[in-house]
Structures are given as structure tokens and as C-alpha cells.
């Protein structure tokens, strides 16, 4: 009798484990706060943003990355990945054609309807959300967990934190906080306001955002810019599809500006500053060198 019951329970257990075996999923909360059922060991991952692609490479898990978006150009090897349309307009059919078991998206970046359609087609979508350095670190942590690269993730995070701390120490040596205008795009000129990670790294690198009152990415007229009269201007490269000379030229028309008078207009690599990845720390170091050249010493590479 007892044996009978025991074998029944054992049998039931076996059936349960057998039936759950092929699924191998787990539930996780993504950074948009949604409950997502993910495969335990994803094998075919599609990234919907250049920043996610960079992070997957940084975690050393590129072998499971099967597709990415247009403009995913870093590292060089990422250029050979199949493209599934752009960040703002991913093509559902191209994504499906890659037969992914996990799609990595950006909250508020990728169109919501595309995410909803993928989920309706039973493809798990894990959304990352990185509006500041803290959230970038959380995103890296989550990616390490999902992609089974926890050690890589914590190494990456430690390196970031160490370098951020170093910058903070050096910046603390001075009270000088020049007004910095970051130009994200030209024609029309787009500035960078608060609640962005660029605003955060301007502050961390010892500057003060010249348009601190604005939020997000406001459109700026030259009248506004003359009024603000920033001391340092940082221009993201390729803004408006123009080359460095053209970008600098559009500013040299205004000799009234302090930044023009003092020759403090710099063009930087947009990909480093506009993508929420570990490389933003490189941007932070670079920005400190630009904003506070007096703090930069020889043993630092910028």
C-alpha cells in the first residue's frame, strides 16, 4: 500500500519533470518592471539597439547574438551581424526569420507596438532601461544574469565604478564648474537637458550643464545659444550628417560666444556619448580632460 502510493508520487514527479524539461524557462522582472518568461539558456538572441549589442560583446557572449540593428558598429565584428532594421523601426519579419529565443530591447526606445507584437508571437522580450549610470550598471547586471555571464558583468561593473571614482576624486580638486553645452545634433541644433545620462556625465566630469533647466533633448535656436553663452561646447560627431569642419564652422560664425573666443569647442565620438554602455566611462574621462584640462596628467590616456 505504502509502496504503491510512493511509486504513484514518484511517477507524478517524473511526469512533471519530463513535461517541464523542454521548456527550461525562468521568470525575471525586466528593467521596465514587467514579468518576463525567459529561456534559462538563451541560444539565439536578437538585440534591438547598438548599445545592447556592445554590451553583449563586452560580456563575451557574442556567439549567441544572432542579429542586431542598423548602426551597430562596435566592436568591428558586430558589423557582420545580420540586420533587423533600425532601432526605431525594427522589422518583425526579419527578427522572426532569425528564430530568436530571446529579444533584448530598450524601454521607451524601441516602439511599443513592435515589442507587443513580438510577445504576441511568443518571443520573450527583456527590456533594458538606462537613463543614468546607475541604471546602466543595473542593465549590465541583468544582462550578465540572463546571458550567463555574471563574472564578466561584475568585472565590467567594478572597472566602471573604479574609473568613475577616480574621475570624481580628481574633479573634487577644484570648485570650478564651467558651463557646458552638449550638442547632440545639428540642423536643427539639439541640446541635452536634464534626466539624461549625458547630463549626468557632464556633472560628474566637473561641468555644469548650460541648459540644466531643460529636460530631455530640446531643440535649440541660435538665439537661445547666444543667450546661454556656454563656456565649453561639446559636439557629437556626425551630428546632422556633417563632418568635423562643418560642425566647427557653424559655431565660428558667432565670435561673441565665450566658447568661440577661448577656442573651447570640441567634437567627440557620438557613439561613446549617446549609447548607454560601459563605454560611457571612457566618455566621462574624455569629458573631464576637455572640461578640466588643468586636471589632466600624463599618465592618463584620453
Amino acid at each position, binding site marked *: 500500500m505504502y509502496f504503491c502510493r510512493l511509486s504513484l508520487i514518484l511517477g507524478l514527479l517524473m511526469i512533471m519533470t519530463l513535461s517541464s524539461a523542454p521548456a527550461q524557462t525562468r521568470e525575471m522582472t525586466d528593467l521596465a518592471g514587467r514579468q518576463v518568461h525567459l529561456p534559462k539558456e538563451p541560444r539565439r538572441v536578437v538585440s534591438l539597439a547598438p548599445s545592447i549589442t556592445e554590451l553583449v560583446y563586452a560580456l563575451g557572449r557574442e556567439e549567441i547574438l544572432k542579429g542586431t540593428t542598423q548602426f551597430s558598429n562596435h566592436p568591428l565584428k558586430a558589423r557582420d551581424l545580420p540586420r533587423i532594421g533600425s532601432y526605431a523601426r525594427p522589422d518583425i519579419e526579419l527578427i522572426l526569420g532569425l528564430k530568436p529565443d530571446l529579444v533584448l530591447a530598450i524601454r521607451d526606445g524601441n516602439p511599443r507596438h513592435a515589442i507587443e507584437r513580438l510577445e504576441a*508571437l511568443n518571443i520573450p522580450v527583456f527590456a533594458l532601461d538606462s537613463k543614468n549610470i546607475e541604471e546602466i550598471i543595473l542593465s549590465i547586471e541583468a544582462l550578465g544574469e540572463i546571458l550567463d555571464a555574471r563574472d564578466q558583468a561584475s568585472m565590467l561593473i567594478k572597472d566602471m565604478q573604479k574609473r568613475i571614482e577616480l574621475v570624481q576624486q580628481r574633479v573634487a580638486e577644484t570648485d570650478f564648474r564651467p558651463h557646458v553645452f552638449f550638442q547632440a545634433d545639428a540642423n536643427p541644433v539639439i541640446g541635452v537637458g536634464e534626466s539624461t545620462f549625458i547630463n549626468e556625465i557632464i556633472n560628474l566630469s566637473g561641468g555644469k550643464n548650460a541648459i540644466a533647466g531643460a529636460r530631455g533633448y530640446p531643440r535649440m535656436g541660435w538665439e537661445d545659444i547666444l543667450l546661454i553663452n556656454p563656456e565649453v561646447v561639446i559636439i557629437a560627431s556626425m551630428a546632422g550628417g556633417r563632418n568635423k569642419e562643418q560642425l566647427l564652422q557653424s559655431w565660428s560664425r558667432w565670435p561673441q560666444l565665450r566658447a568661440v573666443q577661448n577656442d573651447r569647442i570640441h567634437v567627440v565620438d557620438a557613439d561613446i556619448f549617446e549609447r548607454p554602455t560601459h563605454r560611457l566611462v571612457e566618455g566621462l574621462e574624455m569629458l573631464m580632460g576637455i572640461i578640466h584640462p588643468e586636471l589632466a596628467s600624463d599618465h592618463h590616456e584620453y
Partner: protein
Amino acid sequence: MNTDFSPIYKKMLLTILVMGLLLILAAGLGLGIGPTGSMWDKLWDVVIHKTAAHPMDKAIIWQIRLPRVVLAAVAGGTLALAGLVFQALLRNPLAEPYILGISGGSAVGAILGMFAGLAVFPGISLTAFLGSMITLGLVLVLARGKSPLSKHSLILGGVMMNAFFGAMIMFLISLSPDAQLRHILFWLMGDLSMISTEHLPVLLAVLPCMTGIFLLARPMNLLLLGRDTASSMGVNVNLVILILLILTSLMVSVVVSQSGLIGFVGLAVPHIFRLILGPDHRLLIPSCLLGGGAYLILCDLAARTLPREGEMPVGVVTALIGAPLFIFLLWRSRA
């Protein structure tokens, strides 16, 4: 039984058969070709064997390409038919829902509905309908004059209405804090990519409209001879016109709220078929319906496959074909 068929019914049957075949052929192409490449072998697997195919290939064909092909077919048929009706009622070969600004009016209505957070059906379809009816009212006021200029002032009025609605749409988008609404920019030139299987039933609303228009084919023929002639033949002219206009605007607004602004389909398709089949609406209505569907499926196929990366709005293709045709028709009507 065959002896009961008068020649016109035989002709109608033949037209429906040929056009139906064309539509099926176009739909087959639309299902078989896509950005992931042509999948004739897989299409065979998915449709005929059902089980043999990879689930992702199944999803690509049934849940991505099929809704899109269905939307293209319905939108193409509806817009072509609407063009045909407007051309007959306004007795103007250049009339068409996009050119008259009626599509634009329903687009503004639809966007306002989206802003208000209404459901796709009936909410957004209704606000779109309201927008199209208001525009239609304005167009009819413009069309009322008896001077020879009125023919072109109708078109001019429509062009201005389009410019106004285009600006209004851009204005609404720039007011919106929601980055998600940016896809409306694509929608301005027709976007068939957004449709998903759940939204397909909304399109059924065009069926009663089409049936109604088909039933009114004979009175429409008589209307071509002029209002007086038609009413002397026993047609209640005002009622027929009113019903036709309401049915047409209703189906156009249903389509526009799903597909965005696709221009010139209502111009190109009816004129092509008028050249082939003559002016009889009993033949033109079914051929515009089926042939218009086939036409837009093929235009969408070009829009999906021609760009090197991504896709272009289908309205680019229809305008590239339709606008030169419009200019040709304008030139001919002056000669």
C-alpha cells in the same frame, strides 16, 4: 440555366473571375516574398503540409505577411472603389479620396482619437469617420458652383485641405510628448506594417459599405448621364448620392485608420479599368474592388523589397505611379 444570363451578367462573372485570379496571384506573391527572402518551398510546407514547417516560418507567413496582405487587399479595393464613386458622383475624373482631402480628414480624426486614448474599434474608426464626413461636407460646398471653373476648384480645394491636414498632423505630433507617436510620421505616407492579426476584424466594417455601393451600381450609371436624366429614369438622386457618400467615407475612414494615407490608388485603378472595360459601373465596381486589392498588394511588395535596408512607406510607390497619371489626366481634360 445559362440562357437566363444576359450578356452583362456573363461579362460580370468573367470580370470577377479574372480579377479574382489576379488578386489570388498577387496575394500568393505577397505571402511568398518578404525581407527574409522568398520562401516558396516554405510557403508550400506551411500552407499544404502544415506540420512540417518551423514554427517561426509559420508565424512569418500567417501572422506577419498574411495580415499585411489582407490589409493591402482591403485598403486597395476600398480606395479604388472610393475613387470610382467620387469620380461618378462629382463627375470629375480627378476625384479621389486622397486628392479630395478626405483621407487626410479621417487621418486627423484618427490621430485625435489616438490622443484621446480610444480603442481601435469603434473609437478611432468613429473619430476618423467624423473627420472624413466634415471634409466631405466642405468638399461638396466647393463642388456646388456651376461655373466651368468648379471642376478644378474642387481639386484645388482638396489640395489645400490636404496641405492643411498634413500640417495639422505634424502639429499634433509635435505637441505629443510620447515618442511612440513618432511612427505617425511614417503613417503619413501609408504604413501597412503595423497591422496584426487581432486588428483584422476591424476591416470587416468595409464589407457592408461595398455591398451597398455594388447594389447602387445601376443608379450610378444613370447619374453619369446627369442628375436630370437620372431622376427622370426614376432614381431618387439626392438619396442615392447621400447614401453613396456616407458609405464611401465610412469605408475610407476604416481603411485610413489602419493603413495611414495612401494616395492615388483611387485614381490609378479606376482609370486603368475604365480604359479596358468601359464606363459600366456593374463591371467597374467588382474589378476596382478585386483589382485594386491586387494593385496595392503589388505596390506594397515593391515597398517592402526594393529598399536596400528597411522598407519605404507604400504611399511612395502609389504616388510615383499615380501622380504622373494625375498630371496626364489633367492635361487631357484641358485639351
